[in-house]
């Protein structure tokens, strides 16, 4: 089995990085407050700061780039196929004839950067295929294509 070919939007790593940066920034602010008002146990402050720096580096720099390298998607006339993840990687395929709904979902950051996520669900709760971080125009095209093909099928889809 080959891999799907289309990468997500080029802005995807940036959006993922920003999404991860917000909680880490809050954590950092909390630590600064702690450092200012608490006077004892400096070493504990230092350890927490080190953990925060390493964690934020991993989740803000490494993970988004890693995910960008892994994430791929593809839609053919019969199936939708994705690859996703970073440490745990998944390749998932679902036949379009069994598709029940096609949803588009956009979070605040996605809206800011013009991205959209497409979720294709089937009758199985374990079989939903998610294509994340697409440019809005690409997402619209994918949704139109999927609903076009899926509308042809009239089976029970179970």
């Amino acid at each position, binding site marked *: *089995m080959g891999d799907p070919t289309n990468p997500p939007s080029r802005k995807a790593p940036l959006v993922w990085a920003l999404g991860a940066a917000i909680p880490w920034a809050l954590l950092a602010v909390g630590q600064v407050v702690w450092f200012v008002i608490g006077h004892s146990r400096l070493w504990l402050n230092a350890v927490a700061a080190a953990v925060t720096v390493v964690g934020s580096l991993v989740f803000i720099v490494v993970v988004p780039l890693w995910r960008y390298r892994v994430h791929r998607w593809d839609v053919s006339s019969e199936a939708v196929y994705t690859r996703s993840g970073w440490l745990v990687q998944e390749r998932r395929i679902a036949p379009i004839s069994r598709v029940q709904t096609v949803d588009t979902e956009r979070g605040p950051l996605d809206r800011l950067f013009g991205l959209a996520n497409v979720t294709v669900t089937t009758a199985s709760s374990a079989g939903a295929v998610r294509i994340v971080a697409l440019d809005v125009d690409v997402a619209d095209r994918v949704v139109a294509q999927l609903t076009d093909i899926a509308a042809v099928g009239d089976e029970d889809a179970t």
Partner: protein
Amino acid sequence: MTSSPGAEWSRLSPRMLLVHPVHEVLRQIPVIVGTLVLGSATGNPTIAIVVLVVTVAFGVARWFTTSYRIGPGDIQLRTGLLQRKVLSLPRNRIRSVSTDSRLLHRLLGLTVLRVSTGQEAKREGAFALDAVEAAEVPRLRAVLLADSLTPDTEEFATPGRVLARWQLSWLRYSPLSFTGLAMIVAAVGLAYQGGIAAALQDSGIEQSGAAFADRLGVATTVIAAAVVVLVASSLLSVLQSLLSYGNLELRRDAEVLHLKHGLLRVREHTFDMRRLRGGTLREPLLVRLFGGARLDAVMTGVDGAGEASMLLPPCQKSTAETVLADLIVQPDAVRGPLRRHGPAATRRRWTRALALPAVAAVVLLAVPLPTPTWAWVVLALFTVCCALLALDRSRSLGHRVGDGWLVARTGSVQRTRDCIAAPGIIGWTVRQTLMQRRAGVATLIAATAAGVKHYQVVDVPAEIAWSVAAEASPWVATSKWADHSG
């Protein structure tokens, strides 16, 4: 409301006028006891009487306010005294009808009838007729299932083929379950909450018990208590199993599967065979040691785990296998040899199982204090157990694909063999963790609309994962990503 003209609203059995008040009183027991205590304290029993009367009145009112009707397009249930509620179900959505009669219901010849649509119904969202007369049930069942099943009347009149019947020997698998232990723990918890323990404190029973324990010594007391608990839990498990599965009968009438069981509380499930997508043979370790297995149905519209999908409780493995083979008409899927997953998968079972003993050994070595000999003995025993587990787990692992069926077996303590009809598979996932990528294996997950929705083939060699999927599902094989080189 206009969707079902002509259909009459009917009431539940009038005998429920007896049952509802009793249930209502049972439900309000804390309140009633509270008012009784209050009444005896103040010397004024009026409150207690008023509360009792109101409770009984509520019970009676429930019968008058509950009604149902079976229209041509849907069925409706009206309930509620203060808050009226109408529950409607389209009839073509009905997937199964089950019945249940507890002791009080049985004494009065009543049966609770539940209609399931396969949606995960919440407790109040479930369509249950509580209760109708037992004689009404076959007619109602036939009417309710008529739309989704189109049964022949003769087929309902003549009982079909019996696939399995309860046997006394099935009881031998039940002492090995935790049901009895759970019941004992629950009883003890209840006793503590009810203040019985406090009442025992410093009473004669406790003092004589303590004196007895003193004479026996700590070790003997603990062992004696353990033996008593073990025997009691085994007896309770056997009793529970006998009462709930005694006179079980699994019967097939054409496209309908009937399961009926229970001595005191009789339950009956009806399954639509056309929604059967396979079956799962479960062999919990303790049941497997005695050559037993249990059987679950994999059906769309029936909850995958738990009682709703149970076809056979722990019984002889051959019985479970024969029944499953009969249902899915594919003996190879049930009994056929499996393809093993190779050395990488085996290695992963061993490293996982032995990780914990290894850590324990390192800790024991690292602790500066002198370690007692018994600690090493315990560790050695633990290591042997883990090794046996690893051996069994790696031997369990296997899959089989072909003839339109996917079969996957995993596990040791809870060994399962899932047989899934390939046409029912509506999605495939190949998942690899970092460790799996390094070991060159992958977990293949088949998504279906039936049963537990996802069935895993654990740690197949990465290069054959997709070919398994392609062999089961032609649409994977013909997709443009399939490498046709092989």
